């Protein structure tokens, strides 16, 4: 087995572990793999004989299906565990479960967990690559990568783009990974949300500008990422209500007109239509929400490939 490539981390917890060059390498690799999904036989033998465990300790249909599709298109075997179907519900600890998974000799572990830091905990204790598929409000690096891929595709380059991220920044792993990835790739990032959905130190920690109203963030922006609002958070007095939120922070045609010509709209899904954005915006030609889903499979293929079966240092991206 080949060793990991130089400087490539064993685990992918968040995008701050990757250099600009490494992110570019993932995106280039993903571009090559996206073509596989267009073929009649949508499969390459890159990870044949490898076992990828998909450990979803928190409900997630989209991300799990995306990872599963990615692994299968690489010819890997997959084993999906969800919290309800596994022994986690019987009082088994995370560490115990992980050790049992390890005894099945997997080649990589993809984990989604409701607790921030859970993938770090496992990565420190398991010898195989651990890929973070979202951990609480902490990080969602594959979402960050697919957003970068989508933006690069649409705009040619991420460098210099003005990107707004709107919504519940404080509780969003998507916002965090997007901020890290976008700033690393040279974008100018503005975040906006009601004060209860912001948190201290965003400027200094991430190098973004912060707005409590949506208009200044959208002004002249080349792209906007509208975050999903967790409607159940209304109970925790985080915001007064979805109706008012939609009116003040939602994206409609009037607000979209503030953005630069040729701007694009992203959303990690699933969209609360009528809350984060109007149905018209959701269906507009510059809404790239479904492209994001397609690109999600491609970046996850690229990551699995790079982390489970890393190329020799200096080798070019695969064109297999």
């Amino acid at each position, binding site marked *: 087995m080949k060793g990991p490539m130089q400087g490539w981390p064993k685990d992918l917890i968040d995008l701050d572990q990757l250099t600009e060059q490494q992110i570019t390498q993932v995106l280039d690799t993903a571009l090559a793999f996206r073509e596989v999904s267009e073929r009649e036989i949508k499969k390459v033998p890159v990870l044949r004989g490898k076992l990828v465990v998909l450990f979803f300790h928190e409900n997630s249909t989209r991300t799990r299906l995306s990872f599963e599709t990615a692994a299968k298109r690489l010819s890997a075997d997959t084993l999906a565990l969800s919290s309800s179907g596994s022994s986690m519900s019987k009082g088994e600890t995370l*560490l115990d479960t992980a050790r049992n998974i390890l005894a099945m000799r997997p080649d990589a572990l993809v984990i989604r967990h409701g607790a921030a*830091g859970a993938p770090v905990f496992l990565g420190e204790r398991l010898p195989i690559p651990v890929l973070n598929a979202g951990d609480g409000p902490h990080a969602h690096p594959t979402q960050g990568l697919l957003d970068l891929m989508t933006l690069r595709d649409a705009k040619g380059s991420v460098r210099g783009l003005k990107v707004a991220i709107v919504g519940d920044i404080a509780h969003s792993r998507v916002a965090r990974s997007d901020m890290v990835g976008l700033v690393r790739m040279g974008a100018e990032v503005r975040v906006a949300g009601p004060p209860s959905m912001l948190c201290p130190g965003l400027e200094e*920690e991430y190098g973004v500008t912060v707005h409590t109203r949506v208009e200044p963030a959208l002004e002249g922006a080349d792209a906007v990422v509208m975050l999903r609002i967790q409607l159940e958070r209304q109970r925790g007095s985080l915001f007064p209500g979805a109706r008012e939120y939609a009116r003040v922070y939602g994206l409609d045609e009037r607000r979209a007109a503030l953005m630069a010509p040729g701007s694009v709209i992203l959303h990690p899904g699933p969209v609360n239509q009528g809350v984060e954005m109007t149905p018209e915006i959701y269906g507009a030609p510059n809404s790239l929400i479904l492209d994001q889903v397609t690109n999600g499979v491609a970046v996850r293929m690229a990551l699995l490939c790079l982390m489970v079966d890393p190329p020799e240092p200096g080798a070019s991206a695969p064109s297999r």
Partner: protein
Amino acid sequence: MARHLSLKGARIQGGPPELERGGDILITDGLIAAAAPCGGGAPECPEGAEVVDCTGLLAFPGFIDMHVHLRTPGQEHKEDLDSGLAAAAAGGFTSVLAMPNTSPPVDTAAQVGDLLARSLRVRGGARLLQSACLTRDRGGESLCEYFELKEAGASAVTDDGGWVADGAVMRRAIDYAAVCGLLPLTHPEDPTLSRGGLMHEGRISTRLGLRGIPPQAEESAIYRDCALSLLTGNPLHVCHVSTAEGADLIRRFKALGARVSCETAPHYLFLTHERVLGFDSHAKMNPPLRTERDREAMRAALLDGTVDAIATDHAPHSSLEKEVEFTDAAFGITGLETAVPLALRLVRETGMPLRLLASLMSLNPSRLLGLPEPLKPGSPADLTLVDPDLEWTYRAGEGFSKSRNTPFEGWEFTGRAVMTVVGGEIRYRLARG
């Protein structure tokens, strides 16, 4: 026949200045018989006395940790009286004040009496001082029977681990405890502001996506409790102060004449919230590690006398509670075996006088808890002997506590307690390689 112990040549701190350059201490039947400078009027050493050459060592009046959790009764898998008191003695403490937030909580005279009696059967180790609950079952509603608790030997009352949210209850508790000669301790934390929090609220909690605990949760509670101390004119001790503004509030209330005292813990003097990066559960405690500004302010508050005591908040947890996701991990770290070396490091880093160290770790806690004046002839001979130059590396696995939840694993120290004398008996002595 009288039993004698003679400690010769240590530089004795916390007593008369003439002893600081070197003196002899004679102990008879567990009590201080005499302490005098070397050469000049040193007490006659009786025949058959055990003589210990303490040249090169510092002798302090026995260190007192006024905030420890010994997990007894109810959570003996984390710590019990044997392991906790042994860890205390090995760390250089001659007495520890155990918190009553056990399972069940210690809220009756019978429980206090039982624990103190059991501690006397522990071979070796530090003295146990026991605190009792401030309100029944730590419920925050009705006061415990302070007179009976005092008669049973309790030293303090506190609902530590939680704040007494009802201000009227706290006001009565402060008044009533004063009449009974018990020190009331407050755990300052407004739970409506800290609820669900896992670490200090700031840029690191933002980065990690962890729910934050704003410093104001602590500060608003400190304000109310200091105000009640001022209102009643009676003493109140504030536990584990961790924030700059919290310390400043206490400074200002002291200036107003409030009879408030407070403690801070070594980790607030050495670590900040940056330590949580990487989600290490050994950096998770309550109150949480704060910012560099708070850390510096706590050091300043020690040096200017605002802080009265260094107390560890020794909170042992087993791997079952700590070797889990950060969000699920229990709050708290051990402290008994790292406090003295950290305090000595503080002396080196800040130039803090040894006299102040003696006050913070012995004289002030002793006074606050109403214990006999240390080093005085006739007082119990509780002494901590420190080798200030000994270089060593801390390994929790080599310690005496049952638990190993420390953020200081592998720290290299200069100086440690090498001998702990309790009631004239050598309860701990470092084995020399």
